[in-house]
């Protein structure tokens, strides 16, 4: 009897041990909701993201609102490859949602994270991704407070997809809206454009081009807060220039505000490496994605002040005034080329396809 009790006690001790994922690869069992799922959640996700709101591992997190106005956003991440110079899908997933909140003028507070994993995905890669999510969350001052994991059969997904949603609090008395943009305003970009898109293209290794370009992925809430603190009423709208790049967001702004946006090609900051890559591949940097840059449209009279504020922040050292807003032709983005011509920078159709010769 005594011996039986000893064995049972030992089993209990083992059961109380910290859960460990012993598999090297994700299996369908990790998504089945049973023991393996719990082990994965506790040993990987909770271990990386630990905070008081997440720890109860309930069906949801209970939040206490910290301001009257809240911003809420969501974004999905399917980047390939998952790891690239300057970042990975993990910090991208955190920064992307943090930045969407920042563009609303909000202080990002809490995130959710949903993972879709492909059967056979290496657990070590998942740990690497969660570690960089945790680091990015800490840097951005946000907590990951709820989440979900699904596993799909091999071949039904590309390794790992992540969806993050986020809430933030709008604590400054700002009204940001593309519709509020008016003639005479200045268009500012917070740094060199196209770094992220160029880095990912090269990391795919389809082209055999080598260049030292790293993704610009970064949380923008802090630099945005500085800008809004200095010019709460003069900033008309903020947009992060992700998919479709600066050209696409400016087309949206021109269309919403029924104005014309006129850019000066020689004022647009582009790294020589990025210019070179785009030239070789037949792409236009204005359409290449950034993950740590934003466009601010600011009252023209305060453009220089806004530029000073941005340049005073480490993430805005390369900020530049790239153009201005005119009344007509409504809804268009024009580019004054360095060469002395003028052309339209239209909305992209489909994927940017390289030219053949």
């Amino acid at each position, binding site marked *: 009897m005594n011996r039986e009790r000893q064995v049972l006690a030992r089993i209990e001790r083992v059961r109380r041990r910290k859960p460990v994922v012993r598999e090297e690869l994700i299996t369908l069992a990790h998504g089945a909701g049973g023991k393996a799922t719990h082990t994965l959640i506790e040993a990987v996700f909770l271990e990386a993201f630990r905070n008081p709101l997440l720890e109860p591992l309930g069906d949801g997190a209970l939040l206490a609102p910290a301001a009257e106005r809240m911003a809420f956003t969501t974004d999905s991440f399917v980047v390939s490859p998952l790891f690239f110079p300057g970042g990975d899908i993990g910090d991208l997933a955190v920064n992307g949602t943090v930045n969407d909140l920042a563009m609303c003028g909000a202080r990002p507070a809490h995130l959710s994270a949903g993972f879709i994993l492909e059967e056979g995905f290496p657990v070590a890669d998942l740990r690497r991704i969660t570690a960089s999510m945790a680091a990015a969350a800490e840097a951005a001052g946000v907590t990951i407070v709820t989440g979900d994991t699904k596993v799909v059969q091999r071949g039904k997904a590309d390794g790992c997809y992540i969806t993050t949603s986020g809430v933030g609090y709008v604590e400054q008395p700002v009204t940001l809206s593309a519709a509020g943009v008016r*003639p*005479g305003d*200045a268009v500012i970009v917070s740094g060199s454009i196209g770094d992220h898109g160029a880095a990912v293209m090269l990391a795919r290794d*389809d*082209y055999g081009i080598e260049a030292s370009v790293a993704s610009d992925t970064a949380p923008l809430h802090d630099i945005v807060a500085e800008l809004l603190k200095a010019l709460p009423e003069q900033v008309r709208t903020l947009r992060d220039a992700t998919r479709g790049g600066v050209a696409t967001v400016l087309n949206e702004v021109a269309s919403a505000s029924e104005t*014309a946006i*006129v850019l*000066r090609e020689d004022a647009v900051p582009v790294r*020589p490496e990025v*210019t*070179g890559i785009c*030239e070789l*591949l*037949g792409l236009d940097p204005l359409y290449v994605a950034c993950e740590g840059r934003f466009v601010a449209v600011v009252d*023209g009279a305060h453009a220089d002040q806004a530029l000073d504020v941005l340049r005073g922040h480490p993430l805005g050292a390369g900020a530049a005034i790239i*153009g*201005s*807003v*005119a*009344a*007509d*032709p409504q809804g*268009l983005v*024009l*580019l*004054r*080329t*360095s*060469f*002395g*011509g*003028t*052309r*339209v920078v*239209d909305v992209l*159709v*489909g994927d940017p*396809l*390289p*030219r*053949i*010769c």
Partner: protein
Amino acid sequence: MRFVDEFRDAGRARALAARIAERCRPGRQYTFMEVCGGHTHTIYKHGLEDLLPPEVNLVHGPGCPVCVIPMGRVDDAIHIARQPDVIMTSFGDMTRVPGGTGSFLDAKAAGADIRMVYSPLDALTIARANPDRRVVFMAIGFETTAPSTAMTVLRAAEQGVTNFSVFCNHVMIIPAIKAILDSPDFRLDGFIGPGHVSAVIGCEPYGFIAREYAKPLVVAGFEPIDILASVLMLLDQLAEDRCEVENQYARVVPWQGNRIALSAIGRVMRLRPHFEWRGLGFIAHSALAMSDEYAAFDAERVFDLPGVRVADPKPCQCGEVLKGVLKPWECKVFGTACTPETPIGTCMVSSEGACAAYYNFGRFDREQMHRAAGEASRA
């Protein structure tokens, strides 16, 4: 960017533009065709027409390789791509070109394995990596891209790769220019000759244009300064009553062309008796097929092709646009039924296509644009 910026210099551009304006005889209109789609793209991308005086009109020629592919050939390629063991490889531009039953992108969405490559060598790499699949390269383009296709086939033969073939749609520029010269509605004063094609074929093949048709041609580079310089060279010839083939792009184009490239084409390919061009119809001796010696790499012989000729859509006026008879906006469906999102004609597909370039960069009221740009630069 070194070696490029000097050809985009605004100061040099203004100086050239002033000389071009001086060279124009008052009251006379000059119409030049830029044969190559790459030139069309440069002209619109840099807003070059703003620098030209109103006397100089540029019309866009047939030199966009994507634009001249007839619908039936796209359908044949899709037929190949749909075979279960096939990986079809293609340049990016080509993937949106509509055939009679949709484009490569449509076929890809429906399950065909179609991959975008930058070079035919990438297609060969895919073939070596997938020995149990048949890999086909959709070869398009003028003499510019034909040598790389030929070199790839030579390499495949050397390496004993047996699961690789080429669906050859290479076309030649001289017969196309000749078709334009012979067209009854021809009304050009000269040609801005294609740069990359000439790097392969050299400048001599254009001689007949000056001799027999009395039209000047200047082979031009692809930077905006190159194009302005070429326009000036054409105007100089006309002012001096000369009519010659000149080479503005001597930094890349040797007068004799590239013999190694030409001999590779000669080994791997043979002349077709005739070939259908989108909008231009059948042109004799205007395209290349795989030679008998390399029949094993010829997708047209490896696969059973439907080979059905599909007539161009009725409202489509790509032919007139390719010949420079119509400006893109003069086409009946331009910008309404035919847009880059839903192209009817191929000229609307590639960014080198005259219609797509004009739609994207040039379709707007230039006076209004200049006013806005002026206002903005004062602000």
